[in-house]
């Protein structure tokens, strides 16, 4: 559980720092505008990621107006798959309903790449 919470926190920081450090990434951020939530199915752990006007930041909790939600069956599985180097693990998670993606898949897969 702690690992997942830490992962979500680090992901937010990674997003923000990459946005500051990388011109290419900033260009990418400029093209996008969305709100993405990553949470566990029981709602115990949730973090909202905002991308807008070339900036990215994260907040604790689940924003109800999210464009995309990644809902994990549990925190341990989420941490394991999000940190996995095997690109097919995310698809397997989707395929077995371990991970449910609501909304726009593009943002979900983009985030998973970032996490990896």
């Amino acid at each position: 559980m702690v690992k997942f919470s830490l992962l979500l926190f680090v992901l937010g920081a990674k997003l923000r720092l990459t946005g500051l450090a990388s011109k290419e990434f900033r260009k990418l951020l400029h093209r996008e505008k969305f709100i993405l939530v990553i949470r566990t199915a029981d709602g115990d752990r949730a973090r909202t990621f905002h991308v807008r006007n070339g900036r990215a930041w994260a907040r604790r909790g689940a924003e109800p107006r999210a464009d995309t939600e990644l809902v994990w069956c549990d925190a341990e599985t989420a941490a394991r798959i999000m940190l996995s180097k095997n690109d097919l693990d995310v698809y397997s998670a989707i395929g077995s309903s371990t991970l449910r993606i609501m909304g726009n898949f593009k943002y979900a897969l983009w985030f998973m790449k970032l996490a990896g």
Partner: protein
Amino acid sequence: MGYFGASEEPRFDSDIFPLTGGTEEEVMAGLDEFEARDLEKIVGHSIVYGVQLMKDMDAARIAKLANMKFVRNNMLYKELQPGTLRMSIEVKRMIKEMLGYPDGVRVRLTSGGSESLYCAINAAYQWFRHEKPRVKEPEIVVPYSIHGAVSKWCHYTGIKLKRIPLGSNHRADVSAMEQAITKNTFFIAGSAPCWPYGLYDDIEGLAAVAGRHGIWMHVDACLGGFLAPFIEKAGHKLPAWDFRIPGVRSISADLHKYGYACKPLSSITFRGAEWEQYHEFTASDWPDGPYSTEAICGSTSAGPVASAWAVMKFLGEQGYVELARRCLEVKRRYTEGINSVEGLRCWETDLTPLVFQVPEGMDIFAVIGGLFERKVYCLPGFQPPLIKIVVDPVTDEVIDRFVGSLREVVPLVRKGDITIESIRPYL
């Protein structure tokens, strides 16, 4: 970029465009080589295997011959080709008759369902600009399950898209869609049926909403348009979906699906000239004077139009009804077979495609990969995870092979002998 998102980046060690041309034999041998690498024929709109694709192979053969006969005729200049022109007029007339459209509708032929959808949204947008020129951020409201081509067009044009979550029955949530409408909304749509689940949206409910708010209502019948009328003639009832519903201004329906025409060919039909006028566009701001086209594309081959004419004339209503009956039987056999495999469950869909769930916790991509390894093909649904087959009037052999492969693959996936790695070669 392919359907599954894979990108193609082949390597070439040298230039491949020849300095001097080859012989006909050499060229055809090259094409034979490509064909041999396509493991299975993917024809129609469904993924099927083997030689005996459909019950009525004669129709498929005639469609191909007709396509070849007219393949080099350019529909852009049909007015200069009286035969091609007459043929396309007859196809449009037969579309009206086949689909039971009322008098006064205006049919346009397009290159496919995507283009038909683009035409519908664009016509609605042009109408809205005329009605409310001051609106700065025009938007459309659609159910989550509407085809991805709608998202593509909105991306290309900058139109704001609101995809509204579905009801618990996986159909459009009419009330939620109505709540999402604002003064900027110019278009709503429903599917008949939707591609992800084979379910009809409540077209009557949506049309009533459109009527209350004075906005454009479109029905996406790309998948079911040419099947539904014949399914009903075969005695199977379907929800109402067409111009019988007041308020429906446009309908898209693909001839290259259950019209059995060669690809690419679809239709966009407007209820009348009063709505079609917003689709029309003539460019005149260039040296060559007025330039207008049937739809969005410029040059298109008359081949698919010829194939549609040929199949319509060859099959007649009787032939289409027989094929529709066969589709019902195919669906029944698939459902029976799939449900007999432990843990698998078919959804009850209104028409096509047929979708089924795998046991909880089982990875659909492992199952699909295992099927692909056995040269049996299907499609994934992501939300929720489903396996999808389009219901074509295929032979019993095709059904039996699919079900037999499932019976083999599912236990192996359960044991862990087949995993998602089996799908890697196809990504």
